[in-house]
């Protein structure tokens, strides 16, 4: 049997077991749970095997497999060959299938026994998604077609992906984040179908959602970092549709993670939480459609491949299914409590949710609007950056403000005196940080406002973190908040305080920017097996002392007519010096010089957020729940029931 045929066979098996599992999950319920579980494991196993077959074909340069013929090359290094799996459409859908298979198997294996009654529906939902993706791999996006005659060599993956090592990590993180939303989606569907969202199931939704949130946060950061390190315009975010696609589910997932806390603590917002989880999943499918169908190249070209319409049909089916399910079943999720005071922690959670949903719509409208216009009257346009900036900046600062106020306020009704004592002291932090900013030359009003809200939030978060010695509850959340505050300050400062200049330098000529002296030393040619580079050597000095030598370059790839410029960056915690080349000749270089303060802190902050997320999901043995007042804890309930902490009142 040829490799391609073996791959096709494995995918067909995956399609078969996932369809069978979806049917058995919904049709036979708890009676068939054992078999539904086995089918879930089988789906994971077939996806794993199919991916291994593909990786083997890539590594052995088996060009009889269509995907290998499409992206493989004998010239590229081994690491490029391995990551070629996600360098192009068909392979990335296969990789999606692999991640989905492994996630479903893991969720089936590790879900708490307390959720057994929900599991048939959850697994059924996951495997229904699994059968869609197996169908996609088996049909419209088949990477296992047989090529004849077999080519001797292939073109290699898109040079842009070979151009930087960050591209190894960004797509897998994005898929882990996207696909993880399927798991929380399945749990939420189960909750709606059964009309019951108890602590154990809530815990399952929260943990699976938090895991995808962690991966998605890292993915968004890596995407921005990659754009910064590779694309050469010195920015990390451009409100590009592809970037927006990854941000949208992140926003709704963030909202859901907050509303889950309100469900845990006050017993309200169950239906709303389910809506947000369903919405997050829908946005991942929308994102896949937007990035994978080529619809943004032209509304009319996306039908040229069968993948766009297929995903669109799936998106429509999930949307109709979700809306119907919510309409019929949302009232079945009984709220047990109510919110009695607007100025309270839960009050800020409500406003937080409102703002995050508003942000989601803002970005969604700006992203989809050009598509609608082009579909209606054929005019081509895009929505400019100022729209996004002017809408998102105020909402972002309002969220930062809430991030400070919320954790400072107590749960439930509080007296005026309590509120005053909670909210006044952090004003000190706000003044200090704003003053530091102004002393360093910040003049932009939005940035000063961000610094003030950030300073307030920093003081609140620091106090909360210091209290953790008494109770570890919420440790993860506070670490995440710390990361968010740092990220927002860094984003505000780096985007308003950057200095940029374009210069043409002769050999040994010097230009100055923000205290750096930049000297063009000359250019040289270098060659590697898969590319040739023209490198501009640039010496950087500060106050007469050598700092570093940067080497921005033009990379020429064999399969591309035109070279790709790659910038070089000198990073410090205070700021980056970014040098990218517009043109290099023997003794003359056109350089773009950019000095951006604090930009490294964005990457650090997101790692901190991810760390906080990990702290929040891992069941640390030290994290003893508060004694659940009035909650009945059955002895057989097991670990999953820790979530009863949510019922404890203050």
């Amino acid at each position, binding site marked *: 049997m040829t490799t391609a045929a073996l791959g096709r066979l494995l995918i067909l098996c995956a399609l078969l077991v996932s369809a069978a599992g979806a049917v058995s999950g919904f049709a036979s319920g708890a009676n068939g749970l054992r078999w539904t579980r086995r089918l879930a494991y089988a789906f994971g196993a077939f996806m794993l095997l199919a991916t291994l077959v593909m990786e083997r074909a890539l590594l052995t340069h088996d060009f009889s497999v269509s995907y290998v013929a499409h992206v493989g090359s004998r010239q590229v290094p081994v690491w490029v060959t391995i990551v070629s799996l996600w360098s192009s459409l068909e392979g990335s859908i296969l990789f999606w299938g692999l991640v989905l298979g492994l996630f479903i198997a893991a969720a089936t294996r590790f879900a708490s026994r307390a959720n057994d009654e929900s599991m048939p529906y959850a697994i059924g939902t996951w495997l229904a998604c699994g059968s869609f993706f197996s169908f996609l791999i088996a049909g419209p996006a088949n990477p296992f077609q047989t090529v004849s005659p077999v080519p001797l060599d292939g073109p290699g993956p898109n040079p842009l992906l070979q151009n930087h090592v960050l591209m190894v990590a960004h797509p897998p993180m994005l898929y882990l984040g996207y696909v993880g939303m399927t798991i929380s989606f399945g749990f939420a569907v189960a909750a709606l179908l059964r009309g019951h969202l108890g602590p154990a199931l809530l815990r399952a939704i929260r943990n699976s959602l938090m895991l995808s949130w962690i991966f998605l946060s890292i993915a968004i950061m890596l995407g921005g970092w990659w754009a910064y390190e590779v694309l050469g315009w010195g920015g990390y975010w451009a409100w590009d549709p592809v970037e927006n696609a990854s941000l949208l589910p992140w926003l709704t997932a963030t909202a859901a993670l907050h509303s889950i806390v309100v469900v845990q603590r006050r017993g309200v917002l169950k239906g709303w939480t389910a809506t947000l989880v369903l919405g997050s999943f829908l946005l991942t499918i929308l994102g896949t459609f937007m990035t994978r169908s080529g619809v943004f190249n*032209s509304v009319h070209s996306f039908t040229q491949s069968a993948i766009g319409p297929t995903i669109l049909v799936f998106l429509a089916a999930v949307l109709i299914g979700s809306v119907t399910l919510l309409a019929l079943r949302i009232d079945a999720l009984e709220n047990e409590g109510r919110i009695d005071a607007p100025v309270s922690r839960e009050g800020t959670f409500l406003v937080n949710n409102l703002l995050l949903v508003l942000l989601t719509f803002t970005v969604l*409208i*700006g992203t989809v609007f050009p598509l609608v216009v082009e579909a209606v009257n054929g005019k081509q346009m*895009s*929505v400019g950056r100022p729209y996004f900036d*002017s809408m998102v900046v105020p909402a972002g600062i309002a969220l930062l403000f809430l991030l400070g106020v919320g954790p400072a306020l107590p749960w439930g009704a509080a007296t005026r005196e309590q509120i005053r004592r909670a909210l006044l002291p952090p004003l000190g932090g706000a003044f200090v940080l704003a003053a530091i900013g102004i002393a360093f030359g910040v003049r932009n009003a939005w940035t000063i406002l961000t610094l003030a809200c950030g300073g307030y939030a920093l003081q609140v978060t620091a106090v909360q973190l210091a209290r953790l010695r008494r109770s570890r509850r919420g440790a993860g959340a506070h670490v995440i908040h710390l990361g968010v505050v740092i990220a927002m300050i860094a984003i505000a400062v780096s985007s308003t305080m950057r200095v940029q200049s374009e210069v043409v330098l002769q050999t040994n000529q010097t230009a100055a920017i923000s205290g750096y002296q930049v000297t063009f030393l000359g250019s040289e040619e270098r060659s590697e097996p898969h590319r040739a580079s023209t490198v501009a050597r640039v010496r950087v000095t500060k106050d007469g002392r050598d700092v570093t030598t940067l080497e921005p370059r033009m990379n020429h790839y064999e399969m591309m007519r*035109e070279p*790709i410029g790659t910038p070089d960056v000198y990073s410090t915690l205070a700021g980056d010096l970014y040098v990218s080349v517009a043109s290099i000749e023997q003794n003359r270089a056109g350089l*773009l010089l950019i000095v951006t303060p604090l930009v490294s802190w964005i990457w650090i902050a997101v790692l901190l957020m991810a760390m906080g997320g990990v702290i929040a999901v891992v069941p640390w043995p030290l994290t003893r729940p508060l004694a659940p007042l009035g909650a009945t804890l059955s002895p057989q309930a097991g670990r999953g029931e820790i979530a009863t902490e949510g019922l404890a009142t203050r």
Partner: protein
Amino acid sequence: MKPNLSATDVMRRRTRRFVMLALAVAALAFLAIAAGGINDNLVYYWTPTDLRAAGNKAYGATIRLGGMVKAGSIRHATAGTTGVEFDVKDAGAVVHVKSSGVPPQMFRDGIGVVVEGTMTRGGSFESHRLMVSHNNEYKAPKPGHPVDQKEMTKYIEEAR
């Protein structure tokens, strides 16, 4: 309808109605702001022919103009400054472009370009951003066919 509503039930219904109304007003206000924001910040993808056809409407709007660099039209700025002037043409029209900044390596006669900027009443297109066709997948338009502007812009942006 239940005959005997308690006072709290009535209160709850009133609050609920009030909250719904407030949310609806907020949603409408948001939509109005968003629509205005989008309308003010649209970037049009035009060819020189589109630009000429728009007449007076072209002034002031942010436009991505795509076409080919007319042979022999490139004038580099004097030494010490950056910037370049050239003509962008398609099958039907020619537009004079003044671009600030260092032109990219591959910039030359006859290459496909997209410039972003605004049309001035002085008769030239002032651009702050110059992108050249950068992708092996992009095929130059056949004579007599307009450049598929958006397609090219996309290729350029992806490879930027």
